[in-house]
């Protein structure tokens, strides 16, 4: 039996994907996991690899440290973001463990959206947006009302919830949108302040942009940075990009490092943005960033590649797509990053493969989660595997032999095809037929992820954004001008290092 022991912290779909990726390593690692729920997919991989599934709270440094001491792993991989924020990485490193995952200070890049935006302005990282952070709910509401056409977010990472876009796509809607924004901002600020005590600001109000979204996941040891294939997530709950915001209802990637609607050049520029970010973090905090860092990007008409938010981890569902895309040894990738030896690693991917990942959620996610909890799920794994698809368990818990929903996205189905997205999507649809609830409770997913009509819309939007930003660049424009009768010519200078200088 192999000597290499890896401990993975967390028990969601992302950690399931990590477990699968790591299990394929030529090091044939024994896999240990610490998590508070029992994820059946991970449990199986722990057992078959000769490892163990330990119960413990991933966010509790003591729990994780205890598990680590018991196992003496060669490498610890932190899956979710919350353990990073609650100093799990710091405590483990302090005790001499080799950890893949950023420290609590460097993970501020995700936790604190104001910190991230400020860093971008201070170090002039391209793709930055105007923003302002607030502590006081009233003040935040007042600003949201005055600024208009804005996006209101919790200043702290809140698990993909709370963001509302108050678009003034037409001037005649501005009063209605601003009033709605103000009311919501106040309510959100109060909620965030009640819920989180570990951050100063409650709200961030940002300028709204439009375009095509994609995620660039990268792995870094603080010096070298390796970009993984670009993945597109789908934040809307419903088909046709309708419905409330979710943590992601599925994702597509392929046929190589880039998607059909993102160019090689845009991929490179996005990589540069993330690279500049880790450099700036080093400058700012005098600390190397070690682990995964991802840019949730949007191709916009102003900047081209624009940063919406950072993840101090792999994206979920995005990482599921990697199951079919990574050819080289993923465990070695993470291990070399954790040991500061990434420069000698050579990433290989499957060219020419289209991957579609679809999340399945119990009805009620995300707006009425109580309803979505506790439904027994049946998954015919055999039939799904026959289709060549992978199953990733997420918001489920194995209780007395029954698989119960926890209220979040229950599982993900990942399928691939060499023929195209449409084909991979059709496979996933077939596979989803083998997932149901024993109590007849409704499960939801998006049939349109990977559909042809869907890609077509993305291509068109990306083309429009590209036309606009290349024109802007050709003219060397980093200023936005506006004529306000009576006030004169006002401008906003994006080349300055302060966000609010107009």
């Amino acid at each position, binding site marked *: 039996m192999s000597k290499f022991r890896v401990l993975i912290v967390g028990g969601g779909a992302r950690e399931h994907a990590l477990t699968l990726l790591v299990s394929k390593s030529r090091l044939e690692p024994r896999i240990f996991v610490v998590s508070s729920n029992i994820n059946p997919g991970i449990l199986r991989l722990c057992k078959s690899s000769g490892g163990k599934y330990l119960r413990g709270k991933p966010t509790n440094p003591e729990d994780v440290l205890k598990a680590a001491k018991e196992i003496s792993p060669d490498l610890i991989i932190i899956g979710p973001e919350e353990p990073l924020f609650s100093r799990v990485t710091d405590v483990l490193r302090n005790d001499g463990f080799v950890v893949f995952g950023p420290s609590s200070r460097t993970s501020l890049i995700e936790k604190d959206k104001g910190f991230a935006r400020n860093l971008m302005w201070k170090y002039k990282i391209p793709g930055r947006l105007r923003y302002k952070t607030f502590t006081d709910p009233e003040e935040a509401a007042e600003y949201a009302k005055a600024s208009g056409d804005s996006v209101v977010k919790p200043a702290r990472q809140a698990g993909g919830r709370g963001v*509302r876009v108050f678009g*003034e796509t037409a001037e005649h809607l501005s009063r209605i949108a601003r009033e709605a924004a103000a009311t919501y901002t106040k309510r959100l600020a109060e909620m965030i302040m009640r819920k989180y005590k570990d951050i100063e600001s409650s709200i961030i109000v940002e300028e709204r942009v439009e375009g095509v979204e994609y995620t660039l996941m990268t792995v870094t040891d603080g010096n070298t940075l390796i970009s993984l294939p670009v993945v597109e997530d789908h934040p809307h709950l419903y088909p046709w990009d309708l419905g409330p915001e979710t943590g992601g209802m599925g994702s597509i990637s392929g046929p190589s490092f880039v998607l059909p609607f993102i160019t090689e050049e845009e991929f490179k520029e996005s990589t540069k943005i993330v690279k500049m970010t880790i450099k700036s973090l080093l400058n700012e905090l005098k600390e190397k960033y070690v682990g995964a860092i991802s840019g949730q990007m949007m191709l916009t008409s102003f900047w081209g590649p624009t940063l919406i938010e950072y993840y101090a981890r792999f994206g979920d569902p995005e990482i599921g797509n990697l199951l079919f895309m990574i050819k080289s040894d993923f465990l070695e990738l993470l291990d070399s990053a954790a040991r500061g030896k990434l420069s000698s690693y050579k990433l290989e991917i499957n060219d020419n493969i289209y991957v579609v990942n679809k999340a399945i959620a119990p009805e009620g996610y995300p707006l009425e989660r109580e*309803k979505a909890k506790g439904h027994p799920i049946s998954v015919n794994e055999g039939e799904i595997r026959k289709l060549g698809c992978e199953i990733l368990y997420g918001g489920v818990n194995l209780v007395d032999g029954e698989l119960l929903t926890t209220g979040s996205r229950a599982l993900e189905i990942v399928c691939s095809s060499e023929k195209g997205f449409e084909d991979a999507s059709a496979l996933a649809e077939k596979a989803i037929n083998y997932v149901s609830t024993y109590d007849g409770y409704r499960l939801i997913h998006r049939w349109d992820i990977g559909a042809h009509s869907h890609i077509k819309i993305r291509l068109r939007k990306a083309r429009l954004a590209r036309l606009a930003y290349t024109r802007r660049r050709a003219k060397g424009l980093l200023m936005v001008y506006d004529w306000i009768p009576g006030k004169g010519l006002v401008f906003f200078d994006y080349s300055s290092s302060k966000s609010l200088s107009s």
Partner: protein
Amino acid sequence: MGILLTFFFETDQDSGKYSYYGIMGLRHRGYRASYAVLNGNGIEIGRINPWSEKWSLPKGYAVIAGIEPMASLGLASGNTKKVAVVSEGLCDPERVAKILASFKKIDEASSEVISKESMDSCAFVGLTSDGEFIAYRGRNGIRPLSLGGYGFESVYFATETAPITLMGGEYRHDLRPGEVVYGSRTFLESYVLEGGKRTTSLFEYIYLARPDSYVDGINVYLFRKTMGAKVARRHNSTHIDVVVGVPETALPYALGYAEERNVPLELAFVSTVGRMRTAIAPLSQEERLMALSLKLNPVPNVFEGKSIAIVDDSVVTGLTLKTVVHKLRRTQAVKEVHVIVSSPKIINACPYGVNNIDPNTLIARVLDDEKIKRALDVDDLIWLSLDDALEYLRSFGIDPCRRCMSS
């Protein structure tokens, strides 16, 4: 005709404020709208005149509305819920509401409703007091229905897309014939019945829709410009000095015609009553004439001694055209008047209720071309060939309904 549905996912959002602009985006279709609003108290219904000075909708997170009289509202109560439906085409909104209200689950209710053949030539939108919405486009596809989204906030449905964009939304999809979409703040499902035909009303493209809309995927402005150009291609031997379009609907056609013939386009009339649509306004014959006259005050001294082509979008009763020609002849001493109609002859009332014209007032039904020419006092009368319109729409997969244009 013309229907609308807005549904916000956060119940504290005021859909009524957005729907106001949606209804404004449909008011070119008529002078009365009925609506139903869903809020914490249940369903409230009412009726407004969207052309009147001050009107508003009650507060609520979801709204349905339809332009009367061809669209209408029905309300029904079941054991556990109330349902409001706005429908157009050949169906009774109250009956639809009754069936929807008699089922507990909307998926069962909807399949019961739409499986009926009598629903094939209908489109409807509905709301239930359970907080669910439903939208259906009948299998014949006669009545179009498009869908859009506004950020993470809401979903919108409307007969054409201008109301969707006016409410801040982005147009995303045209319901396919036989497609039903229903949902709530926690789910959304859709499916398409078999046997659908895309026989979208040709009259939508010709006259009803706004030029800043898509209807069933067709860009209305481009359709009209193209039709103008197509008539021009068949009418290129006569000499024309100048082209004039009859405001408002005919302007894109006139532009297409003028461009194709390389003849200048002039504005000939100025309106005193805004963009009033005299053809569908609820007026008596006398009032309609008065309104027309106010809408078409001629620009002086532009057409004297000239051969002009007057382009109109369609000729129904011929009243508008009569007024136009008369005014030009009387004030400008024009040399020749060639009338170009950018639609085929309308000779029947619409069996689906898309318009409710008395067949005996249809000039092209009652009179032949020679008589019309005499009645209108014009030198030439050219109609768009039906084949030209069909060829264009078929290239987009639509075989439009033209029952009012064929015998």
